């Protein structure tokens, strides 16, 4: 079992995104570093558009993630509603 992770710039836009990730991934751990925030989850991390929209109170396109993204790891699968990172081993 290995962690996948995603890191964002730490700002007002990503606060809601990180809260949404924590809501949808109960095993997530958050690591705050200067100006950035990194979220690790064992095996698989899911980001759901609907949860982000609830958190930030507006419509959200998952491709907006790119604006504040710093780095990630794992295989990506992206649809209109979900963005998933996973390892397959």
């Amino acid at each position, binding site marked *: 079992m*290995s*962690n*996948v*992770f995603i*890191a964002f*710039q730490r700002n007002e836009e990503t606060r809601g995104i990180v809260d949404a990730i924590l809501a949808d991934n109960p095993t997530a751990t958050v690591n705050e*570093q*200067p*100006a*950035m925030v990194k979220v690790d989850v064992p095996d698989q991390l899911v980001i759901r558009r609907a949860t982000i929209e609830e958190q930030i109170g507006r419509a959200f396109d998952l*491709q*907006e993630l*790119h*604006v*504040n*993204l*710093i*780095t*990630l*790891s*794992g*295989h*990506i*699968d*992206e*649809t*209109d509603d979900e963005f998933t990172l996973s*390892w*397959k*081993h």
Partner: protein
Amino acid sequence: MDMKVAKKLGLKDRYNLMTRDLAWTPTYQAVKDVYPYVEYEGIKIHDWDKFEDPFRMTMDAYWKYQAEKERKLYAIIDAFNQNNGHLGVTDARYINTLKLFLTGVTPLEYMAHRGFAHVGRAFPGAGPRVACLMQSLDEIRHAQTQIHSLSNYNRFYNGFQNWRHQHDRVWYLSVPKSFFDDAITSGPFEFMIAIGFAFEYVLTNLLFVPFISGAAYNGDMGAMAFGFSAQSDESRHMTLGLEIIKFILEQDPDNLPIVQRWIDKWFWRGYRVLTLVAMMMDYMLPKRVMSWKEAWEIYAEQNGGALFADLARYGIRVPKGWKQACDDKDHLSHQAWNVFYNYGAAAPFHTWCPGEKDMDWLSAKYPESFDRYYRPLWQHYAAEAKEGRRFYNTTLPMLCQTCQIPMFFTEPGDPSKICYRESTYHGMKYHFCSDGCKEIFDNEPQKYVQSWLPVHQIYQGHCFPPDADPTKPDFNPLAEVLRWYRIEFGRDNLDYEGSPDKKNFDAWHELAKGN
């Protein structure tokens, strides 16, 4: 009136229509004439349409998000410059990391732009071609934003002014330069494994994430802005690197041994370049976010370990030099900064001895190695400097033929003994810093015998300005080399202690407190 509203296309449909669907097969010319570089490396691709960008980024979305990133970035840079940002950093020692970055890394961004434009053109598949086009545009954006961000520092600090000139000449800058020149002179598939996979996926986190987080920690909003803006593109680059390697391996079983050899080679090439990052993290940042060793454990051992465990299903194993790189994490930064301290007269940035508090931090982060091997060294240098004998090495070091780094790395398992390796090719002897670099040479000696090694070039007389006269009795070869580098002695080089940068920073801080 009834109006039929067409349903908005989903991400997958949009990606198919706007990438593969826009491509065509040429008929006026044979396909192999249009894509002449795609076969000679021995990689076999049967169906290019099997490649798919998992982000499903199309050009229209690309422009939209990149424009937003640029607007954010330049707003921050304006604010930073308008508010005397150059004074807000923790200490002017920090500025030296930026000098190293601008001279060593920014020109590589430009070369990456050229490289991805070239391989994008070389691939017959529309999916990789579009992804390479985006990366090529990203890379020139990175070069430009770094130059813009750092230009403000050039108004106040020394050592930035000749970055482009120096990239092609200064001894340690041949390390990053030759790394990228090596990559872009490879075939398109090797370039993708070299830069897209080995560098972007396995190693780039080590370069950008702790460095840029460190910039923020040291009060440098300018570098933080360009760094994170660049890094937001990096996620796409890493994904391209990972997807392309899976794609190549899935296309034909014959591709595996070729790809594995490239992974072995490019992991080691990239790891050697990161030597500069190791010393930057441990010695050059006045306030440090994490040690090189900690960063290596998170981004290489844990994350890289997960990656290679995942690629094992294709038959891929960890790169050959992996274990040695992990073993060396206790020593790399200390040995590197020692060499830069030695050659502090020949580099366009300042070096210094770590202070007592710095050494206590290093000792806590490196309990296995610092007090035993490196603290005595720094104590010796500090005592010498106190007596007015700040040590500057005036002999030229022997360089590794492959990575071009001075031969200072130690034997695996014995940090008290310098590692030397050699090979003979056409009757000539070539020297290497490690088994990894020797093996890279032995696989392609005809390429690496052509290396432009700064020390050899100096001894051959190629590194003097045109008006230098070696026949004069007072001819000072090292001073002439510095002139050729366009390093102003006593201003751009030597110890941080006593430098104009330090004097200015202290004076400006006094002025900043009142009238």
